[in-house]
């Protein structure tokens, strides 16, 4: 593969990943709310399902979406050779940290 091909392939995969994850985002946000009245007839550890989704379930899925995105993108970066040089934090001589606490 030439570097141009690699680049195109990287961007194609990025868009696919973005699209799929956006689909999951849309589904998990709007579907439980749309069918909330029906879903709420069933419950999970005391929470009616639709209420649970709005209060916790959806948030967990959001975290998972972003987590999967971060993980996959890092792999794509490396696979297609577009990753950044490792960032090296500056190292400071040990000293007393700014004394800001009470």
């Amino acid at each position, binding site marked *: 593969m030439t570097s141009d091909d690699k680049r195109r392939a990287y961007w194609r995969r990025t868009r696919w990943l973005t699209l799929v994850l956006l689909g999951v985002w849309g589904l998990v946000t709007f579907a439980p709310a749309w069918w909330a009245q029906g879903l709420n007839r069933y419950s999970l550890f005391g929470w009616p399902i639709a209420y649970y989704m709005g*209060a916790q379930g959806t948030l967990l899925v959001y975290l998972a979406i972003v987590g999967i995105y971060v993980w996959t993108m890092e792999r794509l970066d490396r696979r297609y050779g*577009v990753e950044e040089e490792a960032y090296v*934090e500056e190292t400071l001589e040990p000293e007393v940290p700014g004394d800001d606490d009470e």
Partner: protein
Amino acid sequence: MSNGLTFSHRLTRLYAWIGGGFILFILLMAVGERLGLGIQTIGYLFMFVPIVAYAGIGFLSRTADVVEYYVAGRRVPAVFNGMATGADWMSAASFIGMAGTLYLKGYDGLAFVMGWTGGYVLVALLLAPYLRKFGQFTIPDFMGARYGDTTRVLAAIGAILASFTYVTAQIYGVGIITSRFLDVSFETGVFVGLGGILVCSFLGGMRAVTWTQVAQYIILIIAYLMPVVFLSYKVTSIPVPQLVYGTVLEKVTERENAIMADPAQATARADYAQRAQAIERRIEHLPPGTDKAELAKLRQEKADAEEHAKPLAPHAEPFPGPDPGHARLNFLALTFCLMVGTAALPHVLIRYYTTPSVREARNSVFWSIFFISLLYFTAPAYAVFAKYEVYTNLIGTPIADLPSWVASWSKVGLVKVEDINHDGVLQLAELTLNPDVIVLATPEIAGLPYVVAGLVAAGGLAAALSTADGLLLTIANALSHDIYFQMLHPAASTTRRLTMSKVLLLVVAVFAAWVASTKPATILSMVAWAFSIAGACFFPALVLGIFWKRATRQGAIAGMLIGLGITLLYLIGIRFYGMATWFGISDVSAGIFGIPAGFATIILVSLFTPAPDRDTQNLVESVRYPSLKL
């Protein structure tokens, strides 16, 4: 110890000290209270000690370097940027108002929980990594580079428009908290708060704001979790409210059924319905030419009485009320607008310019949503526990035996009790709670010492100060960087640019504080508009600018104007000119029309105008890859 510490290690150590120091401070105050330290002194200490700490960080972070001033030197590690974003994002409204809104609205309030977290999915997937790769100073910078200078000015105006009402509301919140805990007038409170805001940002710009925001996040999350953890322990013997409130919700439902079946509750509601009718008759028989204010007052009284006469809406039931179809539509529209607005508010997006790399920017969105979710995960639990306490320990109690917090919060007008059916017992219909009281009074409801109330105030203050700082910096930078430097005086020296930034920051802060001190009811009710405005103005142009090379300058200008125009037209038309709603959508969700209109306009106009030039296309190409090795 090894010879030398990395920046992250040093930061971790510093903030561990601050967090530990804060907990130690709380314990000291608790012991002090036991030993007879006065309530007034505790309130003062909880206000001032954190502010002194913020001022210390702000002072140590002073800078005269442009990159430090605008983007904190671009070396904020992902985890810390996540915390700073959390504090930047969670405002006084999230900290104090959210649990109360959930208490009053039940399921329908969850639009805020989902909207204010789900927006970060859009930030992660569509914006943050690309903006970081672009790597300038402001959001208008990106718009300017991608679409030209007209768009830069439009974006700067949009940024100011969306941020100003919002910052006014934060300063108002600061005024409320400081005046209540320092026992000074509201106006004095506003200006004390202004001092608290300026110590964080004036000397060090983004660098100082970033490092104080991390400390503010630590303080606000401790302050938010502690009371509800105690409450959870008291009710269920398990101190993890987020896990156990499902069972408490079941008990709340039982209580709701019992309350609805109670004949005394029915008589109280009937009495309110009667009162509403009586007021209606009075309004009909008013002599012509009666004062307008008098009429408005009667209408308000009638609406209040009608509110009390309504049947109780079960907490977990979605869309109660006579028109569930429209309620559902509004719920979805509001969730959508809050999400897109979150992903378009400039003060949030600029935080992702401060990380060292694209990779860290992506990571830091993950940490942002994680730290923000900690609070939003807890807010619904807060509401359910508070409801459980109120429904079991308050409703059905003789009015003479009500706990003392009811009286103390009645004095400031946040709680109202009226024995309308004269049976000497409190029915649910007879109780009025202001949403803010849920978080403010929970320490007392749970029977916790005064220290916890002070802690809550310190947390609310941290939330309001950190958000106000992020917003102020955004406004001042739009003026100083985008308008002054980029448009008017591109030759200005670094020193002059920074001086200009600081002067403008001061001017904007004082102006916003002055506006807040006049208690402008209209501005405060307009805060929710910021989301629709930012969403319609920025989101389509930003996203298409990254994902569609063909998007043109003319398309972007037309799209921003039309998106913003439709949104403002709808907001203002509905609010002030009695315009009929479209599909029953309320004014806060105006973005549901403006955002798609923005996308459609950009696409249409772009297709009819010549494609962007080579340089612009190369810019778009370059932001898509973390690093291009050719």
